[in-house]
Every structure is written in C-alpha cells, then in structure tokens.
C-alpha cells in the first residue's frame, strides 16, 4: 500500500484527499518509482477543477516528480533499480509516495542535481526549452514578449531567453513580481494593471513589434498579443490562466500582418524518446552551467497539497513549488 492524493469529483482544493492506494508490480515497459519530491504546476489546478477533463474517477493529480527506481518491469533497459529519475507529463498522478510510470517517460537525474530541483524543473523547464528553442527558435538580438514573466515557466524562460541573447519584455501582475522578473533577466517588465502592454511593446520596439509572443494567459491577453507582433510574427498560445480564448477568424491573422498562430503542448513536442532526452539534456546543461537557476520558493508536505493549491490559485506563490511525500 502507498498513499496518494486523489479526487472523486471536480472541485476546489478540498476535492483532493489523501488515500491509501494499491500500486502493484511494474508490467512490461513500466517502472516502480518511489517519489522523493513532487512538482506543483498550474495545470494541476485545471485537472482538479475539470477545466482539463480526467478520463475517469477516482483520478490522480500531478504531472511531475523525481525519485528512485524501486523495480523495473520486463523489457526496461534504460533504467535500473536504485537509479535517480525524474519526469514530466504522462498519466496524471504524481501526487503520491510511489507509482508505476512508463519507462519511456523517465530521464536519469545527472550527478550534482538534487531531487527537489529536478522535481521542480522538469515540466516548467522542458516547457521553456521547447518554447524558446523549437516552437520559435529565439535568436541573439530578438526582442520577445513573454506573458506571466514572474510565473513558474516565466522565470525560467526569462533567464533562458537572456542566455540565448534576446531582449525580454515580460508582463507581470504586481510591482513585486516586476522586480522578481527583472532579477531573472526580464529587461522590460510591464505591470499589466498599470500599463497598456500593447502600447508599451510598440514603444520599446520603436513601433516595429516583436517577432514572437509567448502567451499562457489566454483570453485576457490574446488580442493584445496579436497586436504586439511584427508582420510574419509568431503567436505562441501555450496556456489559458485567464480562461480559454474564444473563437476567432483566420482572417484576423492576415489582417494583422500574415501572422502565425500555434497552440503547442509539451506532450506533443516530447512524444518521441529522442526529443524528450534532448529536451532534458538541454535543460540540465543550462541549469548545471548556472545560466538558468531554478528557485524553489515554497515547499509543502504532500499531505498539505490543499493549502499549496489554495496559495497557487491566490497567486501567492512565486517561482517553483515542491511537495514532499
């Protein structure tokens, strides 16, 4: 038996309960992982509240974790018992002490990286990786706009974009967050409730607009984001913290300058094992080199996850949060 957080219906933080569950033996291609640290992400809130539907109830929550391999099933060659591993994505359910995971989704944690760091950075860090290096390849000299620059992905992306040689414009909610973003490489933090970000971006770029906008806010920022783009620019919509973007017409992309729109997901980008390994390797390289620092600004006992969700939704957390089993 092991303990896990589960939900039996969609709801608020209190919908999550700490329960005994049976784990079972790893089947072919599976690995039994004992977690030492679990990552907290905004997508977990969507999966709890029903904004992203779950396949069935009771359902596990959580898409990120780090730990130790306890046992491997048939045909698993990449990892062995005792290995330290981490992962992002996969079937929800990382909020637990132990679980079975498909071996194809695990990466080995390199020497010198501790488990908490690994658990805190896999999902947000590989998200920043594919956004900045693959969805649109940020080049030295680019000026980019990254919304929610002080969020979990935002702080990593600011540092990484800076490392790639970009000038980073970021939107944030408060003055405190503006300082935080600036400390992580955001050249021009814009406090959205005090300043019009479209006008500010035009101002900073001498009217030219930016070649790419990274937008995880969604409904509240979508149209403004399109207006920040230079002709042929790329709108990267990768989340919807303010709600889903309503329907729009293709013609809008033409009218605003032959724009590109994409709605990427980490799962699609890292679906192939080679892509996952390359993504993780790039992340480990910039964290080991110190170009990207992962800051764990809060930790909670996993059993206190209700409080962790409450704080996350109230926007009280900054940087990354780790849950300890």
């Amino acid at each position: 038996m092991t303990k896990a957080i589960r939900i039996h219906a969609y709801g608020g933080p209190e919908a999550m309960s700490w329960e005994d569950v049976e784990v079972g033996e790893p089947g072919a291609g599976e690995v039994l992982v004992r977690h030492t640290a679990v990552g907290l992400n905004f997508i977990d809130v969507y999966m709890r509240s029903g904004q992203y539907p779950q396949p069935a109830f009771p359902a596990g929550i959580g898409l990120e974790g780090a730990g130790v391999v306890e046992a491997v099933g048939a045909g698993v060659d990449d990892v062995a018992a005792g290995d330290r591993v981490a992962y992002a994505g996969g079937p929800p359910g990382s909020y637990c002490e132990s679980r079975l995971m498909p071996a194809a989704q695990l990466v080995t944690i390199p020497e010198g990286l501790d488990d908490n760091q690994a658990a805190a950075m896999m999902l947000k860090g590989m998200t920043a990786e594919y956004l900045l290096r693959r969805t649109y390849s940020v080049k030295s000299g680019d000026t980019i706009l990254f919304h929610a620059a002080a969020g979990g992905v935002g702080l990593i992306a600011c540092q990484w974009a800076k490392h790639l040689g970009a000038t980073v414009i970021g939107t944030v909610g408060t003055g405190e967050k503006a300082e935080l973003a600036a400390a992580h490489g955001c050249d021009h933090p814009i406090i959205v409730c005090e300043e019009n970000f479209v006008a500010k971006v035009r101002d900073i770029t001498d009217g030219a607009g930016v070649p790419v906008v990274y937008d995880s806010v969604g409904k509240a920022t979508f149209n403004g984001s399109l207006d920040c783009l230079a002709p042929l620019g790329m709108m990267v919509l990768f989340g919807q913290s303010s709600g889903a973007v309503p329907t729009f017409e293709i013609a809008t992309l033409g009218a605003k300058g032959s724009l590109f729109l994409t709605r990427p997901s980490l799962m699609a980008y890292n679906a192939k094992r080679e892509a996952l390994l390359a993504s993780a390797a790039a992340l480990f390289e910039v964290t080991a080199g110190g170009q990207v620092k992962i800051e764990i600004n809060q930790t909670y006992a996993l059993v206190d996850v209700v409080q962790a969700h409450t704080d996350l939704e109230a926007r009280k957390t900054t940087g990354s949060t780790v849950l300890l089993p």
Partner: protein
Amino acid sequence: MTIVIRIHEHGGPDVLQVQDVALADPGPGDVLLRNEAVGLNFFDTYQRTGIYPIDLPAALGTESAGVVEEVGPGVEDLSPGDRVVNASQGSYCEAMVVPAANLTRLPDDVNTSDAAAAMSKAMTVQALVESVYPVAQDEVVVLHAAAGGVGLIACQWLKSLGARIIGTVSSDEKVDLARANGCDIALVVPRDDLVARVMDETDGAGVPVVFDSVGNDSFESSLKSLRCRGTLVSFGQASGLVEPFRPNILAAHGSLYLTRPLLDDFVATPEDKAKCTGRVFAMMASGTVKIHIGQTYPLADIAQAHRDLESRKTIGSTILLP
C-alpha cells in the same frame, strides 16, 4: 476614354458594370499604361462580394500587363514603349494611369499574356513555398485546388523543389491537368478520402505542410492531414470563410501552426519585391513554371468570367482582353 469595370454595391457577378470613363494625363510619378491583357484572380471575387473590404464605388481588377504609353514628370526608370506588368487596383480596363512603382518591366523572355495572367499568382506561390514554409527536397505536401490558377503554378514550383505533391481537385477532368503539371497524386474531393491517402503515403505520420486556398470545405481535412507540429497555410477561401474556431483545436491536432499569409506582407520592401519578382521571372523564362491560360474572355464579359471562376469551371489561369 477607356472601359472600366466597376461595382456600386457588393453582390454576385451581376453587380459588375462596364462603364466608359475619361483618362487623365499622368501626373508626377505616374504612368499611362495601355493594357494588352488583364488578369483574373479569386481575390477580385472577394472584393466584389465584400469579403475583402473596399470603398464603393470601386474599380475592380488587380493585375494586368501592357505597354507604357506616356510617363509623367519625374518618372525615370520607364519610357513609352516599355513592356510592363502592373499590380494596381482597377486593372479591369483598357488603359489606366498608375504610379510607376506599381509597374515592373518585363524581361524579353516573359510574354505579356503570361505576366497578366499569372504574375500575382506566381508571386504568391514564391512567397508560399519559399518563404511562408520553405519546402525542402523530398517533403510530402498537400496542395488544395491543385488545378487552379495558383495550383498549377504551385505544382510546377513544388516539383522543382523536389517535393512530392498530394493535390486535391474538384472534378475528374482536372486530374490529368494537375498530374501533367507535377502533382504526384491528384484526388477528386470530396469523393476521394484525402486524409486516408495522406496517412497511407506518410506511414500514418501526416504531412509537414498543407497549402489551402479552399477554406471552409477543406479546413477539417487539412488539420487532419498534418503531422505533429505541421503548418496549415490558409491563403484563400474559394468555398467560403472557415467558421470561427477556438485556437485550442491546434493543440488537439498535434501542436499545429496556422498562418494566413497576404502577399503584400512578403513584398513590403523594394528589396523583397525585387527578389520575389526576380524568382518568378527566372522560373517563367526557364520554362520551369509554364503558365496555362485555360480560357480567355473579352473584358466586357467579366460577369461570365467571375461566374465560371466561382463555380470552379475555369482551368489554370484566365485572361481578359481589352
């Protein structure tokens, strides 16, 4: 005096009116152009119906080719007698006064009818396959309306880049034409199943790019034909505008890219424009891209020309003769 084709209201082909108007003398920077052939584009029908906004009354037509008759003060790079291709609003006419900047001198080895019929289409193709999505050797691509004016040029151009082309056409008669222009597989839609064929040809992966000017009727099959992280290039809507949709649909089909290119954005600077027209002239002059003028109408029969274009009866490019 010259004949012009004007609309005073948006609507069907019947709103196109043939009118006689006086010609002004070319002012500073302007040129008096005598058209020898006028091009017909789907774009013109969008202006007629109002899908693309235009102030009324409006003179329609956007491209033609002919001879410079007179130049205004300050025009130095063109002289009377020069053969030119013209990109100007109001080109459905016998003669017109246009800014010199709208004209490009034609090389000797590019003929006037081909330029009038296909200049903007060929420039569109250049932008689509070399800039919007630079197609690489051996890539499998989907091209809708492969036997249309843009389609036939795109087939030849894509072939010269080494691509394998899965095209769609609207009738059996167009299959051979598309194939003769380099389309490897020509499917008659909606009868033939595009998505099934694409999956067959790509081991279930899908294609990296779909070029779609059909719009509403093809949108769904375009999304389903794309591989993970593929690009849907929507550059027209011959079957009507795509219904408004949620961006999340792009995630559901595998982190797709969607773009809606307009040629003007790709030839915004004189350098970009010269590069694009240079590529087009080279492709036409070398015979790599041949222009198929499938039908010719007297300019005064413009309503019939629009009718035939919209009912997908025309093949290849069309010219109107003043």
